[in-house]
Each structure stands twice: as structure tokens, then as C-alpha cells.
């Protein structure tokens, strides 16, 4: 498992494409920001799909850590990942 933070910057009318795709794997934390645990295999699927979705002048960045524990994460205000498994 890998812990990833994915951020993307695409044309406003195309954000839903990435949003809908990433929701299958990760937690939507802020506009254009997702994070969560994925397997190596899923990460590759995500990378390939994101790559093929992008148009010129658009970009996405994936930050990877080998475990969530290694990530020093501070949240101010409400944490959108809180209770993500309890709906």
C-alpha cells in the first residue's frame, strides 16, 4: 500500500472527469485534491488514466509516501478525511 495525495489543475469545464475518476479510489479532500491509501497496482491504473485524461497545458501531481504514518499532516478547520469510513 502507498499513501498518495493527488492534486490536479485542469480547465474548469473538465474537472468533473478527474473528480469522478478519482472518487473510485480516493477521498476527495478539497477542490482538486484527493488523498488516501492505494495498492501499487491501483496507483499504476490511476497514473495511466490521469495521463490519458490530460490535455495540453493541464497537469496533475501525485505525492507518494510509503505509509500514512510517515506523513506529517496538519489540518486547520474541519478535517474532510475524518470518519471517511463512517457515512
Amino acid at each position, binding site marked *: 500500500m502507498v499513501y498518495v495525495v493527488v492534486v490536479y489543475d485542469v480547465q474548469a469545464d473538465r474537472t468533473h472527469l478527474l473528480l469522478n475518476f478519482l472518487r473510485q479510489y480516493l477521498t476527495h479532500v478539497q477542490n482538486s485534491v484527493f488523498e488516501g491509501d492505494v495498492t501499487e497496482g491501483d496507483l499504476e491504473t490511476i497514473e495511466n488514466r490521469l495521463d490519458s485524461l490530460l490535455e495540453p497545458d493541464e497537469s496533475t501531481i501525485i505525492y507518494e509516501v510509503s505509509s500514512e504514518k510517515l506523513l506529517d499532516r496538519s489540518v486547520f478547520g474541519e478535517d474532510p478525511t475524518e470518519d471517511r*469510513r463512517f457515512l
Partner: protein
Amino acid sequence: MDRNYHVFSDGRLERNNDTVRLVTEDGEKKYLPVENAEALFVHGQVDYNTRLMSFLDDHGVAMHVFGWGDYYSGSIMPKRGQTSGQTLVEQVRAYDDPERRLGLARKFVAGSIHNMRTNVKYYDNRGHDFASIVETLEDCRGNLDEADDVDEAMGVEATARRAYYSIFDAILPEGFVFGGRQYNPPNNEVNSLISFGNSLVYANVVSAIRATALDPAVSYLHEPGERRYSLALDIAELFKPLLTDRLIFRLVNRGQLSTDEFETELNSCLLTESGRKTFSKAFEETLEETVEHPNLKRKVSYQYLLRLEAYKLKKHLLTGENYEPFERWW
């Protein structure tokens, strides 16, 4: 690791843009990433349609439904990914051979007694005097070898469990009175926690068995009955002391669950929604805890231990390799 998701809100579960979405009654939309889901535990009142069912089926995600009273009310399982006529035949053969069935029944009881004893010893070392209970459990384990049939093995397990439950009142803080196991419905706070916790263990074992080609209805210690997954009862027996009981002691003794988290009605006592949430959350954290596995030489989660148990049993049935039940080794 695949995750369990718990739905406490009332609303509608639906397929939306290739993932699962919950629309709560006040219109709030929550998404859950289907790609890393193992099972949905539904505690609230939800509507869903066949489109969601086929979608969950495609992703191999089970839905365990919890209702009032005795909690677990059933599962909607994806169609079998694993089928093997050979496994089923061997599973039934072992059931049909009294010697082999008794052998397996004894293993489940032995493992379960061992895991109860671990809990008793833990508290014996922490200011309680449970030496006599440890002794009773050891006697039970000795008597197990003399059990001539499955009913007797079941009787030994009942004696052990009664002795084991007698320590609960000493461990639990003031305000929590146990006084023996009661269910259908649970009559006090402690019994309601045990019922709820055990139903979570049971549902997770159902998921674990599903990952193998074993048939959940063919069991050894419990009599294969109608309308229940009795093999899940056999395997759950091993894990209740580790997963349910330790968690109850921890939550209650640390004051994370108080008596305010229960609703008492005539003859029954049940957790409130917020109490169930607190418990489920801590339960999921427990499932994620890991321990170094001596044979696999790597860290495995408690949840994975459930699956390993199903694999070990399957291997025993197919190859005759000795089945050693899960006994807490740390």
C-alpha cells in the same frame, strides 16, 4: 488492505459515476471509493436498487445488514468468485466422518479456550486474582481430549465460556453489571456490547470465508443449520476474545463508552447510534492492527488473520495438512 465501510445515516445508496454514493435524507452526498472496499456494513435505513447490487457484485463487495434486537440480519453477497466442487466435496466428507468432524470441533474449542485464557491471564497480571479461572480453563482444555462427540466438545466450550465470563464483572468499572450472558435481546449494557461486537466478528468471518471456495453453511463444531452460516460461527468462536472482548474492556474502562450510550426498554438494552458508531470505529481500528506472523515472516493485520483461518481450514480439507487453530501467540 480492503476496507469496511459503515453506513449509519438513513438515506439512499446508489451507483454514481462508477462508484458508490450515499445520499442522506437531508440531501448530503457522500462518496465511498469502491476500489478499496471489502464490505459495506449498513446500520441505518437505506434504499438501494438492482443497479447498485450488480455494481457491488462486479466489484466483489458484500453488504452486511444490521437491524434491531439481535443486530445481524443478513448479507447480500457478490456471486462467488471462487467455486470449487472439489473443496465442497472434501468439506462435506470431513463433516460426514465422525472422527474428522470431532477432530476439527476440538480444534475450534481448543483455540477458543486458549484465546479466552490469554485474556484472563492478561488481567490476572494486572491486579486481579484469576488464578482459579485460569485453572478451570486449563482443566477444560484437558477434558477436551476426552470428549467423545461434538456435543461433549460443545459442552466443554460452554463450561469454559461460563468460567471466562465470570471475570467480566471484576474487570468492568462501576455502572457496568454483566451477570452472565443473555441475548435475544441483550438485557444489559455489557450483553448488548457483546452481541454487537460478536455480530461484527461474524460478518467479517462471512466475508473471509467468501474469499475461499469453502461453503459457509457446512460446519464442524456448530451443527449445520438452516438459514445461517454455521462455519462462520465456528471460526468466529476463535476470534471473539481477541476482537470483541478486549475491545469492550478497553472502551468501557477508558470511559470512551458510558452508560449514557445505551437505550433500555422493557427487557432489552441496546446501543444508541452514537454508541454503535464509537464501537464500530474502534473495532475497525482493531482489525487494522498488525502483528508479526511467525510463519509468514511479515506483519499481518487482525483482519487478515480471519482470512488466513479460512485458508488454513481449506488447505487441511484438501491436502490433509494438520489444521492448527488460531491461538494468540503474542
